[in-house]
Structure formats: C-alpha cells, structure tokens
C-alpha cells in the first residue's frame, strides 16, 4: 500500500493561466484538488481611497484601470452613478453613442476572453483569430475616444467629444461582417473533441449555489439562471432596444462558453440598433463644470458589465469630491467560486476554471 499525504502546491502569482498576478494555493491529493486557497491583492492600488480625494470628473480615469479589458463599461457605471446623484439628464445622442461603445467593449472583452481561455486549454488559433477582430474594435475606440485600452470614454452628462466623421459607417460595416466571424470560431470549437473534453462537465456550479455565492453575468446565465441587469433593471436606454438573453442550463464551462458566444451576437445587434436610433444633436451633456453633491445623498447603481454585476456605491460629501466610492467588482465576487468549482478536479482543470470565470485582476484587487 502506497502512503499518500496531502500536498500543497503554489500556482502563481506568476502563472500564465492566472492572467495577471493571482496566487492559488492548491491542496492536493495526488493530482486531485481538495481545496483552493486564493491569495490576491498584488494589484491593489487603493482605487476607492483615491476616488475620495479627486473630484467627480477626475475620477473617471481611475475606473478605466479597474477592469481594463472593458474600460468603457466601468466608465459607464461610474458616470451613470454620478448622474443619478446629481439628477443630470443625458442627451439622446450621448445615450445611444454610449450604448454602442459599451457593447463594442463587451464584444472586445469576450473576444479576449475566448482568445486566452482557448489558448490556456490548447487551441492556439483562437488567439490569432480573436485578436484580429478585437484590434478592429480597439481602432474604433482610438478613433472615437483617443485611446485603445484605458479609454476614459465618458464624462458625467455625456461624452467628451462627438464621434468622428465616418465612424458610424465603419462600425456598422464591422457589425455586418462580425456574426460570420463568430460562426467561424464556433466551427473550430463547438464540436471540437479536445475542447469538449476540457470544458464539458468541468467547473460545475448549480444555479442555486451561484446565486448564494453572489455570482453574476455569464456565470449565472451559464447555470440556467435567466438574469441580466440590462433586462431586469434597465439603465442607459437598454429598454428601447431589442435583444435576447442567452441562458444555458448545464452549469459547466462549456455552457458558459456558449453564453458568451451568443452574447457577442446579441451585442452586435444592440450596436446596430443603437447607431440606427442615435439622433443628431449635442453629445457633451449638461452637467455643471464643478459637480457638487450634497452631504448624505447616496446611490447604489448597477450595470451589467461583460463580467457581471458592476456596482458603484457613492455618497456625496457636500464638496466636489465624493465622500465614499465603493466599487462592487464582478470579478472579485465571481472569483469566490474558484474553490467550490475546482474541488475534485485535476490540476489542469483549474486552468479551465480560472479561464471560465473570466477574471481581470485589476477588477479583483482594485
């Protein structure tokens, strides 16, 4: 009889599959994972503290740097919260321009998720195909917002400047060709035997557990829970566009993959509708130059970022800086599932689990 004992293995902080600096202490029996201890904070920059020292306009660039793969969505969550606090109206042009930009960022984020997730599992082609399309979207961001990754896209009340000439046509042309690209990805992966064996039945979490653990976004919808904040608590004009919420009931990595693929198609639809609805007019908005929020006025506003429920809880302090700015980061809450999801799996499957949660460490640590 061979003697066995529990074994501890450090995965990270520098590990290619952790997509940043995340350390997992795996408790192993042979190659089977018994428990996972997550150590984070390597990227903690004190964003919330910094937000309490800058004024409402200066805080926008901080929000880019939380979830840097979908920076426009973080900008949107922040500026919408400030608009709620101050009661500022957004012009219709700005509303739809924002919707188009944030949905493009959802596509870009999902593309990069697919690229890295597939690369982790062993499908290298996806990296090249997905970054090819993502590059086009980043070019759109650069043209309209001046930056590719840390966009600082919006300001309270609207956008910083109007969209450049020809931008709308270029985006619509991209939207026309993009669904065919998604199909291309699917021909490569959907029935791929290696892909199926690495994702089907891996990282299972039931819908009930997912709700109790506070998971959100594709993590919920991949577990059969039909919940999308764009439908449930519509914000930013989402109640005026038509789109479907994909839900798959299998609770595993494969069904989360299907959710994200379908979301890319639906986002394309939203971009097309938003650009069609976008009227001419002023885009910069009506918020005052110096925003002051009275003491004690508070708001907790949530948006559906590519990773899930992104919430901003802000309290005014009577000055031009917020008294409190808490960021409810979807990656942080979703990462909590890495323990329950990895139990009983092999070490190689932990890579799949990290990938399927779709974490961004800037968002986890803030």
């Amino acid at each position, binding site marked *: 009889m061979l003697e066995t004992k529990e074994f501890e293995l450090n995965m990270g902080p520098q590990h290619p599959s952790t997509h940043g600096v995340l350390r997992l202490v795996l408790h192993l029996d042979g190659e089977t994972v018994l428990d996972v201890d997550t150590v*984070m904070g390597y990227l903690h920059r004190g964003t919330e503290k910094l937000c309490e020292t800058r004024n409402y306009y200066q805080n926008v660039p901080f929000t880019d740097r939380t979830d840097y793969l979908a920076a426009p969505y973080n900008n949107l969550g922040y500026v919408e919260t400030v608009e709620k606090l101050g009661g500022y109206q957004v012009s219709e042009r700005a509303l739809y321009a924002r919707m188009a930009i944030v949905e493009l960022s959802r596509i870009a984020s999902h593309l990069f998720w697919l690229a890295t997730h597939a690369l982790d599992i062993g499908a290298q082609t996806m990296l090249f195909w997905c970054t090819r399309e993502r590059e086009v979207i980043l070019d759109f961001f650069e043209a309209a917002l001046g930056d590719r990754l840390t966009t600082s896209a919006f300001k309270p009340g609207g956008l910083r400047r109007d969209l450049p000439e020809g931008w709308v046509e270029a985006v619509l042309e991209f939207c026309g060709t993009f669904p065919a690209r998604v199909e291309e990805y699917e021909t490569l992966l959907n029935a791929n035997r290696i892909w199926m064996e690495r994702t089907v039945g891996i990282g299972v979490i039931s819908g009930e557990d997912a709700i*109790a653990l506070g998971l959100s976004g594709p993590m919920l919808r991949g577990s059969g829970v039909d919940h999308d904040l764009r439908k449930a608590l519509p914000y930013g004009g989402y109640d005026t566009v038509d789109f479907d919420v994909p839900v798959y009931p299998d609770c595993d990595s494969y069904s989360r993959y299907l959710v994200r693929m379908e979301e890319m198609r639906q986002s394309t639809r939203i971009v097309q509708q938003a650009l069609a609805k976008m009227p001419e007019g002023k885009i910069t908005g009506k918020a005052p130059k110096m925003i002051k929020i*009275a*003491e004690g006025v508070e708001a907790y506003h949530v948006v559906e970022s590519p990773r899930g429920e992104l*919430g901003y809880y802000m309290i005014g302090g009577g000055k031009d800086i917020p008294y*409190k700015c808490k960021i409810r980061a979807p990656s942080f809450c979703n990462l909590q599932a890495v323990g329950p999801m990895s139990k009983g799996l092999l070490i190689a499957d932990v890579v799949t689990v990290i990938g399927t949660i779709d974490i961004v460490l800037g968002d986890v640590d803030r």
Partner: protein
Amino acid sequence: MADEPSNDSAEEPAAKPAAEEKPEAVAEKPAAADATPAPAPEPEPEPEPHPVTAALTGQFGDKVSDEGEDQCGTPIVRAGADDLTEVMTWLRDGDLKLNYLSSVTAVDYTTRDPRFDVVYHLYSVGENHRLTVKCGCEDGEGVPSMVDIWPAADWLERETYDLYGTEFLGHPDLRRIFLPDDWEGFPLRKDYPLEGPNLELLTRQQAAFRGGQFDRIRGEQAINEQEREMAGPGVVGALWVPEPPADESETETPDQEGD
C-alpha cells in the same frame, strides 16, 4: 435610533436634484422650509413608504427604521446589530426573497456615534427588487457575520474588514484579503492618510526632491536605523540630508583624527 437629524439632512438634499421623480415632493419641500422657522418639530409625514420597507416594518416593527430611498429609488432601512441576523434571515427566506447579497461595505463617519455604518446591498433575483440595509458599528465592536445566510458574504466581509477594520462576529476566516497580513491600520478610514502610514518620512523625501539637498551617498549615512527600516527595501538610503549643524562637523573631526 438617534439618527433623526442625520435622516433629515439625508432627505433634504435629495429634494434638490429631484427633478427626475416625485414632483409633489419638490412642491412640498419649500412649504416645509417656510414652516420650519416657527413650529419645526414635526416633519411632514413620509409620503408613502416603499412597499419593500412597508413589508419589513410590518414584520419587525420598531426593530428596523425607514431611512427613505437613495437616488436610484432603492429603499434604505437601518437595523441594530442585535437584530441583524434575525432581520437578514427573514429577508432571505420571507416574502421579500432577497436571495442575492450584492455587496457589503462600510462608511466611516469619523465624528459620529457609532462611527461606522456597515452597508449591505441586497437584491432578489426572482422578484427583481433591491434593498439597502445599514447597521451602525462602533470602532472595536462588531456586527454579526452574514456568511451563514449568504455564502457570498465571506470575501465581501473580509474586504470590509481589511479596509475599514470593522469586525464581523462569527466569520469563519476573518483576515486581510488584499493587504499583507502584517499591514498596520485600515486604509479606507478617513483618518488614514492617502500617502500611507509613513507620511512624515515621505514628505521629507518629497521635500528633498523638490529642492532640498539631494545626496545619495551622504544621505545613506545621515539616515538613522529606524528611518531606513520604515523606508523599506526599495529605498536605498535616504533622499533627504539634514543640514549639518556647525558644531557637529567639529565633533566629527576629532574622531577622524583618532582613526
């Protein structure tokens, strides 16, 4: 509780930007403001409590107090630390079905008593409504942990403890989550300086950068042991060189002669 005045101050500014909803509330406010100088004591009765708040107060009576709504229309209630577990269990299992704990955080009101508010943002995935629950917490005391009710609270409470130092009683594993285990202080408290705890050393270094003397080699000698320790491994020596007093240079020379 003793929060009646702070409650009013929370209501009043809300009416200023209230162009978005409740036009009648805006109309009423000026009248109330006119009336306040003379009688003052009774604020006009709350327009209509939010149905979620009404259900909660109907169940628990005085144990929870209505604190109005925030700018998104989410009702806010306040509960005492002693009743919190009971109230929260009912919120999850009772009619409101608030099965989703969205976030936990704290707010530091430095001069207030109790000093902190622990804030829970709840949501019902099926019924689609929100609720914010606040609970006062004095520095050094704690509030009961919600891990048994929502497993999501595990990391959220650890984060709050890490950044605010509010204890969560009964939490199975309450330790720092972002900061190193031996970190001193709680960064999101209002009395914690933005630059970090070694503020004095930092400002001296910055002063040196801005036009004081900048001499790395002599600085390394001038720094004392404690300052070197505070500066950490990244900073070699000090960037600050104190002005050598006239008599000190004299005391040094005999030493060198002795060598």
